[in-house]
């Protein structure tokens, strides 16, 4: 069966520090991968998606970047965090762009 992992589960970082969040998927091949951010009490904002290794599409201009070094690994990064980067970050995968998405447990990021 397929599983998706995200770590860390929670993170508190100072403004200006770097960020690296990792997401890995098991049990499937060639998935579409997604990074979402959810502000408190709000909906999901799609940040990045990837249809293959090294292929990254950015949905909104921001202080973040994403990479996909392996088929089932998706990394969200920042060189210098801003206060506005705080939020709940969710990784998801799907087979096909409009098919069911499977979400990871999320990372709660607080930037102080």
């Amino acid at each position, binding site marked *: 069966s397929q599983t998706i992992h995200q770590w860390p589960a929670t993170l508190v970082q100072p403004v200006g520090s770097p960020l690296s969040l990792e997401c890995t998927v098991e049990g499937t091949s060639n998935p579409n991968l997604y990074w979402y951010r959810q502000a408190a009490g709000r909906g*999901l904002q799609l940040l990045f998606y990837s249809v293959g290794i090294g292929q990254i599409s950015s949905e909104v201009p921001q202080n973040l970047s994403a990479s996909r070094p392996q088929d089932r690994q998706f990394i969200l990064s920042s060189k210098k965090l801003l206060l506005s980067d705080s939020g709940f970050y*969710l990784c998801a995968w799907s087979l096909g*762009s409009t098919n*069911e*998405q499977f979400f990871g447990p999320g990372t709660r990021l607080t930037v102080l």
Partner: protein
Amino acid sequence: SQQGEEDPQALSIQEGENATMNCSYKTSINNLQWYRQNSGRGLVHLILIRSNEREKHSGRLRVTLDTSKKSSSLLITASRAADTASYFCAPPSYGKLTFGQGTILTVHP
């Protein structure tokens, strides 16, 4: 980009009652999905309804789709306290799913 808009934003009911949540979208779709999110957790897929389907059932869930009105509804029958969560509809747009603000459902025991 298109976004599903859920209504109401919040819904509070007693255990055993039915809960109905609505979703409106803007452009033609080939399917629409509903997801559930427990507080502080990832989203879980509930049901997918295709554009050629008007109604679909899954356990206590009933989803309808009216493509002429560009709307969908999610009905949870005989609600339980464990149904307390946020519910999102997700219509596709330009090959990606879009999520609205969700409906926060609170079921009181």
